[in-house]
């Protein structure tokens, strides 16, 4: 109990004093996760919207798969990305293994299905509401997709936040493809795992507190956006 108390005090000091090592890890984590979530949104929004709006052979199977991929095991994704990027793998010549780019790729693969599946559901609900009106005024398919994505903007922000939450809390995949190299690929989650195994609880706890604060902030932001949207846009 005494150890935990001491670690808690030290971790609080690290946060308050804005410890450079801690800041570096937090900033790298944010950079990687924000980039991954931006890329995943760019890919996931149109895929989700297309699945909601277009009918094509195999659509049902594609929807089942994308829903199933929401629960992709991170270590498996990490392993697959590792094999692809390793020196003997097909993308080996790019030299991306054990770089932040590899971690972005892994996180992006993990959260794209989440963003696409939740976007599909959001757009499908909106499509039910607006389909007849949009057809009645002669809106084409592409305009329809753009319009529904805009109409669902507040729900889609929540979707992005959910993706960001998953990315920032992920440890297995980034540990495999990033290698947890100090000053290069060391992020919050991998540091917590490493420092805990070393017995350095203060840094692990400080990062844990920051992660929890981040998670609470994300949820608060999602709730705030929903409330604002409901109040102002009906």
């Amino acid at each position, binding site marked *: 109990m005494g150890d935990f108390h001491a670690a808690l005090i030290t971790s609080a000091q690290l946060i308050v004093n804005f410890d450079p090592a801690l800041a570096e890890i937090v900033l790298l984590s944010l950079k990687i996760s924000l980039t991954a979530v931006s890329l995943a949104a760019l890919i996931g929004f149109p895929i989700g919207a297309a699945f909601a709006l277009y009918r094509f052979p195999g659509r049902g199977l594609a929807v089942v798969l994308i829903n199933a991929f929401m629960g992709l095991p991170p270590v498996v994704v990490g392993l697959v990305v590792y094999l692809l990027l390793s020196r003997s793998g097909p993308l080996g010549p790019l030299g991306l293994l054990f770089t932040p780019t590899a971690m972005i790729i892994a996180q992006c693969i993990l959260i794209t299905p989440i963003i696409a599946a939740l976007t599909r559901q959001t757009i499908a609900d909106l499509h039910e509401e607006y389909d007849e009106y949009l057809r009645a005024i002669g809106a084409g398919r592409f305009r329809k997709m753009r319009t529904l994505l805009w109409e669902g903007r507040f729900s889609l922000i929540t979707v992005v936040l959910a993706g960001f939450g998953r990315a920032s809390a992920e440890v297995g995949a980034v540990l495999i493809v990033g290698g947890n190299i100090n000053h290069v690929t060391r992020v919050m989650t991998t540091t917590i795992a490493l420092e805990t195994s070393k017995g350095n609880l203060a840094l692990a706890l400080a990062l844990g507190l920051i992660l929890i604060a981040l998670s609470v902030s994300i949820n608060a932001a999602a709730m705030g956006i929903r409330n604002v*949207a409901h109040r102002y846009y*009906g």
Partner: protein
Amino acid sequence: MAKARNLTVAEHTEAKARHASAVLPLVVSNLNYQASGHRLIERVSFALQSDSCTIILGPNGAGKSLLLRLCHGLIKPSQGSITWGGQSPARAHQWVAMVFQKPVLLRRSAAANIEYALAVKGIRRNSRKQQVEKALTRAGLGHLAIRRARVLSGGEQKRLAIARAQAMQPQVLLLDEPTSNLDPIATYTIESLIQQICNSGTRIIMTTHDLNQAQRLGDDVLFLHKGRLLEHTPADEFFARPRSQQAAAFTEGKLVY
């Protein structure tokens, strides 16, 4: 009717006049619509010419809204044909607008809702603002231009939906129960707006089950019962001497089975 480029308001008005005769008459021949084994529209045939307000009247479940959707090409008939001036509903789309029973409003301001419809229509950005202002003023919604559309009252939402449809300068306006669930004052306001649109030369085809409204607004009446067209007569004649037993019962306020 394909849009090659964006149009100014003047170009659009001119094009509207050019196509005026092309859109009417609306000819519906031997129309049938079936869903899940049930015949919802059965052997309906009629023709509507220009310059009047037609009321599609009938009890709930008669197929009024369905008929309007079929005419606008939103649903494909099981059998039969619908033509607007000899063209399919899809080709006449640009000159026919529809307002749904429950106003479908986008999550943006009242003005932006109208502007969106004009953008889809292909009206140039610099012409849209003026059109939007005009449409809102005509509907008595000028003071609500920046208000979010979905937080307006029920009556205001219906007026906005009509104003948005009218801003597209259609030759024919299809209105599905435009005053359902409204109080008498809101109903009066909407009826005045419909009358004003009709007087401006836009052909109105609307559904209602309100007999008094049908009498106030209608020039001719299509009486539907269980998916079948029982009468198509001038409104005065319909109310004075209904031909079918069901129409007679309906006009007397009796339950129609």
